[in-house]
């Protein structure tokens, strides 16, 4: 959180914390879920194995995003970059589904 926010009025500080908390939980889960699906689709391993690796990794992704949400200088950056990454992962999943349908 930047020094500017700290000197800001109370409601702005609260809004900032709320934006980060929602990002940590909502965006964290979204990115973890997309990461699990992307790994499950793209890892060069049998489907069951790739699915498993995606799932096992996803919780670390969630924890990392949650920490990032509170470490970033500005809350909006987390949302902006987070949504960018999410769309990138979604495109990757979509491409792989075009190439090879689900079992």
């Amino acid at each position: 959180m930047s020094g500017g926010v700290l000197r800001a009025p109370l409601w702005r500080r609260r809004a900032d914390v709320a934006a980060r908390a929602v990002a940590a939980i909502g965006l964290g889960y979204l990115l973890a879920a997309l990461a699990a699906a992307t790994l499950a689709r793209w890892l060069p391993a049998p489907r069951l194995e790739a699915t498993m690796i995606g799932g096992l990794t996803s919780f670390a992704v969630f924890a990392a995003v949650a920490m990032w949400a509170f470490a970033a200088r500005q809350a909006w950056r987390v949302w902006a970059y987070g949504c960018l990454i999410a769309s990138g992962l979604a495109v990757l999943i979509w491409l792989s589904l075009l190439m090879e349908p689900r079992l």
Partner: protein
Amino acid sequence: MKGSFRQSMAWLHTWSGLVFGWVLFAMFMTGTASYFRPEITRWMEPETGRPASYAQAAQGAVAYLNQTAPDAQSWSITLPDERQATARLFWRPAPSPGEEAPRRRGRSENRAVLDASTGQPVSPRDTRGGEFFYRVHFQMHYLPVLQGRWVAGLCAMFMLVAITSGVVTHKRIFKDFFTFRPRKAAQRSWLDAHNLTAVLALPFHLMITYTGLVTLMGLYMPWGVTANYKAPETYFEAMFPRAEEVERSGVSAPLANLPGVLETASEHWGGGRPWIVNVSNPGDASAVIEVTRHSGDQLAYAGGTLAFNGVTGQLISATPEPGPAVLTHRVMYGLHMGRFADPILRWVYFLCSLAGCAMVATGLVLWTVKRRSQLPDPERPHFGFRLVERLNIGTIAGVPAGMAAMLWANRLLPVGMAGRAEWEVHSFFIAWAGTIAWACARPARRAWVETLSAAAFLVAALPLVSAATTSRNLLGALLSGDWAMVAFDLTLLALGAALAFCALKAGAYRAAPKPRRRSRTVAAPA
């Protein structure tokens, strides 16, 4: 949250720890107890006898089922291990002609509990036993099961966040291994205690939190499955391959000798223990016996299943060896459950897990100790501070008191009472809620002393309550060499003593060397 990375992580650690702390403390406490789930069940079912060999139990189970349900569609036998005194049976009756195969699992008329050594049916008092602590630690209670699991998942996720951000916050993680300054200012000692319990068992805390999430991965993170499989069933078949169901042939044939089949299974596993036995079409020429390996035989939780011809006893098939990622999942599952642990390692698990409880508790107390000195008027704290303080007292003393209250209820409620098992569970929550109410009604320091003393009494008196109401008592267990039950009573006494020590410390707090700050006269216990 100020400029630096470490400061923002400290903020995150503080607040995620506080918001989820109370539920996490209850999860940690009941989860800790779950490492002794079979022993707790044995204690809560004093009508049951002693553990016996699985072969002996299998013989009794087959004799019972042959008599009670000879033409069932299938039998399921959960064999006892060296920690359990009963075999648990369940059967699916044959569908009457024209009727769909009945899929109603768990109807009580199709269940039986047999003494492991005599094979005779026993009817223990109506209780959930150690199963309650196990269930409540990942799915709560009074909530629909799935919602409860999501609550537990959210708490566990933020436990993981609190641990990782806590590690970042911590500047001198190695040095603090050896730092404890009980006579320093209150905040410093509490911080040391929090660091000590957290850092000493850090690998355990990290492992248990991550693997806890992994055990319910199918619920929390099904998206990899969705991305790869059109129907979840396809995934489950790949994950848990099962033998095809076979129709009854109508030609009767005697069932193969079950202890012999189990012997073969055990040899196949290099001495592993059979755990669950499924017999389909018993008494028919098409009978199949499936034997699942004990989940504590290896680090990996799922030990695999062997299918045998139910008449000749010949091995038909074995579940395929899992790939490395599936095996990793099973190992993580197994690490969480700790069933592979031999007694010494199980005690290490228990102690690390207790350190986890202490970590959460000291963290919660630290929040108030740190803020008390900064209050504008320490005698009249604002509402948020009082709320945290009361919930801390009510939960840290209330959860152990509640767990003990449940064991009291197990001994004191009439055996024939309707809804008995549910009332045992209610007494857990009544005692916990009562402790919170007490904490709200009393001055903080008094409340600490009184609630901790009450919890200490409730825990330490249990061996006496048990001796007065049932045949289970310390002396009898000692004389008959029932070491698990001896250890159970001694552990209760030790835990009661630990709680009494905390109560004493809380009471003696005023007498501790005084810091300059006046505010400490009403501070939390040391």
